[in-house]
């Protein structure tokens, strides 16, 4: 496979009709050679099918590496689609197959790479959907910006149990959240959805929730009156991606029963202010602002490079290592201001300068110990592989998305009027 690392067998070019047959042969060969070498048992387990729309040839190698990391870890079938405008491969579908192995574990997953000539793209579902293993969960990962409302997208979504997108990869995050919400609303009866950008934000939600696990601090939740969410942006003349900020706001509001108030958002794109009414009738001011000048890289590359870190837990980058960076729109800080029984409380999480750690600060009556955590270890570098173990609908995400789309939808309307 192009860009392959590690012990994936060389990809074998095959005809569309002989994919299953050729894969069976490859497994037999792997079993015989492992047996001859006294290696591990080769068992053709499968627990899922992953269909990946990898985009054009330019982005494909990076996506393929990510898929290989899945097939080496999870017994699965990956169907990877490479499709580029204006590109022809001399045949409608250029198909090759291979199996991935992990040291000491024998062969694990199988990969089917389909390069699609432009003229054949509309016929893609008829080729891809029969390759999905029956009776097992199937996932569709659409890298980059999905062609919302297109026939191709709708057909592939209809054929899979779960669709995964990444709103950090979209050019217009506000429109992307609205379009994703629209897709979820229409398809949720048959397909579950996830956003890798939501998954990466998990440590921030965990740390926020943790403040209020303490019974003495729980009453402050009803007394929140001001929220500030800061997200990472590059240079000031570059577009920003506020998807994480809006999803976080959507999560807080949906969990705490806040209702948007009045005309909703105001302010510039880089600093949006919203007002909510809490469950006790109290007004809450929420601001989502961009912090400019943060080094940005695609999340996919941050996850592999470890951003600043060389170790699991984020030790300092050494010479020759990439400079610290985060993905577009990564949360930089969250600050909740609240009061309970007349006592003010302040709850803050802030990303450290190394961009890999965050520290908490809690002052409510007393000062509580601060804590520094590795965002990476807690899931900010969430990989595709983590998402494949999500069963069923994530109702918390869907609620947060509904609220986020309500906020961004209002912003869109304001922009267009």
């Amino acid at each position, binding site marked *: 496979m192009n860009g392959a690392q590690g012990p994936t067998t060389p990809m074998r070019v095959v005809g569309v009709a002989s994919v299953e047959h050729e894969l069976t042969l490859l497994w037999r060969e792997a079993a015989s050679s492992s047996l001859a070498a006294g290696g*591990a*048992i080769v*068992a053709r*387990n499968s*627990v899922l099918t992953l269909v990946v729309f990898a985009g054009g040839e330019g982005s494909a190698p990076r996506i393929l590496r990510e898929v290989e990391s*899945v097939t*080496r*870890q*999870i*017994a699965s079938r990956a169907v990877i689609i490479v499709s580029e405008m204006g590109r022809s491969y001399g045949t409608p579908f250029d198909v090759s197959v291979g199996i991935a192995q*992990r040291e000491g*574990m*024998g062969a*694990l997953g199988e990969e089917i790479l389909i390069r699609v000539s432009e003229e054949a793209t509309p016929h893609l579902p008829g080729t891809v959907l029969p390759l999905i293993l029956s009776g097992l969960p199937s996932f569709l990962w659409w890298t980059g910006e999905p062609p919302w409302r297109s026939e191709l997208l709708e057909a592939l979504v209809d054929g899979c149990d779960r669709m995964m997108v990444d709103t950090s990869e979209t050019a217009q995050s506000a429109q992307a959240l609205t379009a994703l919400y629209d897709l979820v609303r229409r398809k949720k009866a048959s397909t579950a959805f996830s956003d890798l950008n939501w998954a990466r934000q*998990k440590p921030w*939600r*965990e*740390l*926020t*929730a*943790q403040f*209020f*696990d*303490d*019974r003495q601090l*729980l009453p402050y*939740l009803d007394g929140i009156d001001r929220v500030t969410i800061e997200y990472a942006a590059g240079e000031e003349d570059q577009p920003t991606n506020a998807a994480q900020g809006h999803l976080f706001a959507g999560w*807080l509001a949906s*969990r*705490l029963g806040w209702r948007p108030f009045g005309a909703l958002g105001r302010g510039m794109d880089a600093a949006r202010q919203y007002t909510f009414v809490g469950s006790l009738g109290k007004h809450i001011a929420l601001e989502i602002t961009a912090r400019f000048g943060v080094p940005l890289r695609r999340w996919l590359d941050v996850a592999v490079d470890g951003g600043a870190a060389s*170790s*699991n*837990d*984020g*030790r*300092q980058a050494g010479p020759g290592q990439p400079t610290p960076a985060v993905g577009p729109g990564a949360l930089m800080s969250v600050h909740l201001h609240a009061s309970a029984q007349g006592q003010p409380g302040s709850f803050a999480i802030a990303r*450290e300068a*190394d961009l890999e*750690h965050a*520290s*908490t600060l*809690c002052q409510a009556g*007393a000062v*509580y*110990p*601060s*804590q*520094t*955590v*590795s965002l990476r*270890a*807690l899931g900010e570098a969430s990989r595709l*592989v983590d998402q494949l*173990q999500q069963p069923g609908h*994530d*109702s*918390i995400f869907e609620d947060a998305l509904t609220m986020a789309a309500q906020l961004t939808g209002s912003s869109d309307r304001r922009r267009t009027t």
Partner: protein
Amino acid sequence: MDMATVAVNPLRAGMRTARTVEPAVVVIFGATGDLTHRKLLPALYNLAVEQPLPPQFSIVAVARRPFTHEEFRAQALEAVNTYSRRRPVSPSVWETFSQGLFYCQSQFGDLHGYERLGDLLDQIDRERGTGGNRIFYLATPPSFYPTIADLLTLSGVSRRSREGEPGWSRVVIEKPFGHDLASAQALNAELSKGFRESQIYRIDHYLGKETVQNIMVLRFGNGIFEPIWNRQYVDHVEITVAESLGLEGRAEYYEEAGAIRDMIQNHMMQLLTLTAMEPPVTFGADSVRDEKVKVLRAIPPLIESEIAQDTVRAQYGPGLVGGARVPGYTQEEDVHPGSSTETYVALKLNIENWRWAGVPFYLRTGKRLTKRVTEIAIQFKRPPYLLFQGAGADQLESNVLSMRIQPNEGISLRFNAKVPGQEMRLQSVNMDFLYGSAFGKEPPEAYERLLLDCMLGDATLFTRIDETMLAWQLVDTIEKAWRETNAPIATYEPGSWGPTEADALIERDGRTWRRL
């Protein structure tokens, strides 16, 4: 699970860590020992990195040697950097983690030391907001357990465990819990002066293993196994815990324990009860443990003649393993030359209840065996082969469902299939499921799971006193019979699967041990 967990935080809805840990102090007795350095500190650090634990979470290490807090923090850092699966340590995370790490010097039998410990715990409560919540982890040699339990109560350090006072206290005790029934009862009596049963967590790290927990999921989370999991379909069950290593420097402990106390009384009884128990109503601590206890109660008391016939004890002799010469057990360093401690035990047990009557459970465990493997095999009854006469059917093996606990954790089902060709020929084949290949996720260490459960007040994976006592009762009966009848101790070649007497034990019933 007790009500220590907070269930009303609306932000917790749908989170993986829906169970949250309350602020608490873990007090480790035996803080400079191997267990603390290799397992406990790395496990607590890993939990802090991944869970995360609340910022108030604190650790107090208690040991006899004089160290300052800073000196102990440096040792702890080295331990975590050496043994944590999350090494190297992140300096930023360590900085806040280590601020909650304290050291208290004390002899385990010195009452004043416990008073100093009490003062330190009160100070931590005040300064770090740990709310009087304490876990006392006894990671010392077992001979110190009664003393520590006694002084924790006498000094009032465990006082907050009493009803009506703020905070909670729990005590975690490593195995072995006593060395026989009488000593286990005495230890329990000592602990009961300061702690209720619901506060006592008897640890058996086997129960923290993902694959052991998977036994319950396999049995009760699937519709196809439970209907055939009984005497109508099962011929017999084999449980093997084989080690390829010898004593590894543990002669002093092993001379006292032997294989029957080291393995049968705890790990193997856990595997047996999880395999044989009825479905619990919930996964709550008492529901699961009630069912396990019922299994132990259904094992009829063994009489002397049965013990002579249905148990085998043996010692490994000198020999060659992997081309290297290894000493016999009695030639090992720190082992008495005339020692009669067994390094191998095989036994047959019956469970006289409606599910299992007539289905023998064969258990075997030993050191210096062919390889390291832990497995539970459910051997099903042979189907009538008349239909396939002449097709090699008489040579066919019965269906076996084997649950491999370690290594290569997984499940394997052996069944018969037709050999391709014109003739009707049958052959046994295996359908394998490998845990590691299906879920590309590194499971947490057993100690991480167990420590977290204890912090959460969930005792499901800890042994209850009645379980412990019933297991000791069984072991004591066997030991007593061995002693009083001067039962012979067989020898076996290191690197083999055990003595021929163990083969005879199962062959007498027309069966053989599985080749693993």
